[in-house]
């Protein structure tokens, strides 16, 4: 069977599975739609959270980014996992005890204010749309390379599938499809990683192969060889960083606190039966995520080494098969600057090979000469990663519109049935907007990823944590804090990414902190402003202080929830 046919088969079968699950788990009430009825087993929820979290960026791009950044790439590894510790220790159990449907629900009630709720909704929608645009592009890339259909057709097929299970099934449908998607994506990630680890080091466990010796009898380790080879070519050593320590610190912190403030992740912890389950569930989620996140840096180093070995100083005639396959997509380019028909790869101006970081994972099976079914599997895995995250994001967008904007603010008189209908309509509209982003990707998609994490870190995360751990923070403090964190972070990123991109370097950054890391400063600003303003204005009313007392005590969540 040809690889092409296998890919159609794998991707088609996975789609059939997702739609089957969607039909089996239709949502019957707003509670089903928003929080899957609230009775999801913690291990199941952990797996769903892992799929929700690991997006096209984690699956397709992350290993590639690390591959080209070396040690500096650890900002993503630390940032995107460390946030779960904060989530499990400081947020998830208390939000579960609070037991409502959305993140703005908590902010609105805790700060007894519609304004606070609306600010939270705006942050949530901005963060989630930024994120979803990237997912749809991921679906497009996978489709165009592996199925050789237009990006447009690919995105429309992806939209149709998400539409089926997100609009029909709501959170309930999404939860069970995400479990299936996690299985598909982790299997698809690990199989080529194991093979490439065996190929390079002879060790089948990538995490161990990463530190092992290269299997060519030379006795030097993968990382030593990589350092030597890259320095020879004029790059920096792989195991040394080039970013300043303060910037690495700030970016890692912004990504960590941002992760813990992302609404589509937080809302997953509303779906488990009780408080202790929320904590366990976060543990399982991170364990499932860590399987991929500890494999990614190993894949990154193997792929970089292999790339230099097979491409540098190879005549174009003898270029490996994958090289010409990927040349067609424009993600790999060779320009024979010195007309010697040999490909030279280096850090200098005489470099002739341009490689898009996204192909590191996607081309891995071809680079490692794996059979066609592995290539097909990676395609299905990439689509699963993108669709699972897109669905989670679309759900929080639609529930914040139907629940927070309509039911809680603009149209309090609507019945539950109408609210459910509005939720479905909002989900359908959100799917269409996301699809448009995929077909006409705004040029700034890559630029705005900094926005998603920076704004979540500077606005939602501190507002929630302070709301749980302090009874004294009042609505004036919280709103002033969120707005100052938000506005500061927004304009800093806007200035360096869009207004004066030519100034976007360490010399001009404030304190040497890049726009990617500024969310951390925004968060500190938020906390500072919230404390000062709260001190200067009256404390929250007694019933709000009681609410805080109540969410601190784990018992009683299930009963409170069923009302």
């Amino acid at each position, binding site marked *: 069977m040809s690889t092409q046919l296998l890919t159609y088969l794998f991707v088609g079968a996975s789609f059939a599975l997702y739609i089957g699950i969607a039909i089996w788990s239709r949502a019957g009430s707003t509670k089903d739609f928003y929080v899957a009825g609230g009775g999801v087993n913690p291990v199941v929820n952990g797996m769903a959270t892992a799929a929700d979290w690991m997006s096209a960026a984690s699956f397709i791009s992350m290993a590639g980014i*690390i591959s080209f950044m070396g*040690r500096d790439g650890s900002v993503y590894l630390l940032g995107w996992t460390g946030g779960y510790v904060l989530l*499990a*220790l400081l947020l998830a159990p208390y939000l579960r005890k609070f037991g409502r449907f959305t993140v703005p629900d908590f902010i609105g009630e805790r700060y007894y204010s519609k304004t606070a709720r609306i600010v939270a909704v705006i942050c949530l929608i901005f963060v989630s749309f930024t994120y979803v645009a990237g997912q749809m592009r991921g679906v497009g890339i996978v489709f165009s390379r592996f199925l050789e259909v237009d990006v447009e057709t690919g995105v429309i097929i992806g939209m149709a599938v998400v539409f089926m299970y997100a609009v029909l099934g709501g959170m309930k449908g999404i939860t069970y499809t995400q479990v299936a998607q996690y299985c598909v994506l982790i299997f698809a990630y690990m199989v080529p990683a194991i093979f490439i680890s065996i190929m390079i080091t002879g060790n089948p466990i990538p995490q161990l192969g990463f*530190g092992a010796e290269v299997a060519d009898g030379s006795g030097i380790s993968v990382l030593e060889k990589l350092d030597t080879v890259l320095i020879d070519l004029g790059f920096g050593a792989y195991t040394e960083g080039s970013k300043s320590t303060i910037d690495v610190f700030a970016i890692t912190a912004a990504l960590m606190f941002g992760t813990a403030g992302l609404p589509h992740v937080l809302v997953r912890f509303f779906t488990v039966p009780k408080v202790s389950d929320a*904590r366990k569930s976060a543990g399982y989620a991170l364990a499932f995520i860590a399987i991929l996140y500890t494999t990614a840096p190993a894949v990154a180093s193997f792929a970089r080494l292999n790339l230099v070995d097979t491409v540098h100083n190879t005549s174009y005639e003898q270029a490996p098969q994958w090289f010409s396959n990927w040349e067609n997509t424009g993600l790999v380019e060779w320009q024979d600057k010195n007309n010697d028909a040999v490909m030279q790869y280096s850090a200098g101006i005489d470099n002739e090979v341009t490689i898009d970081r996204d192909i590191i994972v996607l081309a891995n099976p071809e680079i490692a000469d794996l059979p066609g079914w592995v290539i097909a599997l990676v395609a299905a895995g990439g689509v699963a990663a993108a669709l699972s995250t897109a669905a989670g994001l679309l759900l929080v967008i639609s529930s914040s519109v139907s629940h927070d904007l309509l039911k809680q603010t603009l149209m309090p008189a609507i019945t539950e049935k109408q609210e459910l209908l509005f939720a479905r309509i909002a989900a359908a509209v959100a799917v269409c907007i996301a699809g448009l982003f995929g077909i006409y990707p705004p040029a700034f998609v890559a630029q705005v990823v900094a926005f998603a994490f920076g704004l979540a870190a500077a606005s939602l995360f501190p507002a929630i944590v302070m709301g749980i751990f302090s009874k004294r923070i009042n609505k004036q403090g919280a709103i002033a804090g969120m707005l100052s964190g938000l506005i500061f972070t927004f304009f800093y990123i806007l200035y360096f990414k869009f207004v004066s991109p030519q100034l976007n370097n360490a010399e001009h950054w404030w304190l040497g902190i890049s726009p990617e890391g500024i969310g951390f400063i925004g968060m500190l600003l938020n906390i500072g402003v919230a404390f000062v303003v709260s001190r200067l204005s009256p404390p929250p009313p007694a019933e709000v202080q009681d609410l805080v007392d*109540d969410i601190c*005590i784990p018992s009683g969540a299930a009963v409170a929830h069923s009302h």
Partner: protein
Amino acid sequence: MSQQPYRHAAENPSPHDHNDKKNITEKNATDYWRANLRLLATLLVVWFTVSFGCGILLVDWLDQFTFFGFKLGFWFAQQGAIYVFVALIFIYAWRIQIIERQFGVDDDAEEESL
């Protein structure tokens, strides 16, 4: 012996519903919260040390040591910290449950109410 939880007896209000306030004494709630904050502080110190400490601030210094073929600082930044993160969450879930039971604020009996 009946397997029914005691709270189903009419004269004994459940500790797991809106009667919380009557059952869980003020002192238990405060002591529980203090113990929780202490545990959180300890675990967050570890969280900060392995990630920001070993993986970022001390990374160059730690790189002089070798660990399973890795430079130690590099290993923390790209592997070690992640393993510790997973362990921290499970340690918290385990320790806090013991503390909850000690102060009678646990949610052990709540499964069947769903």
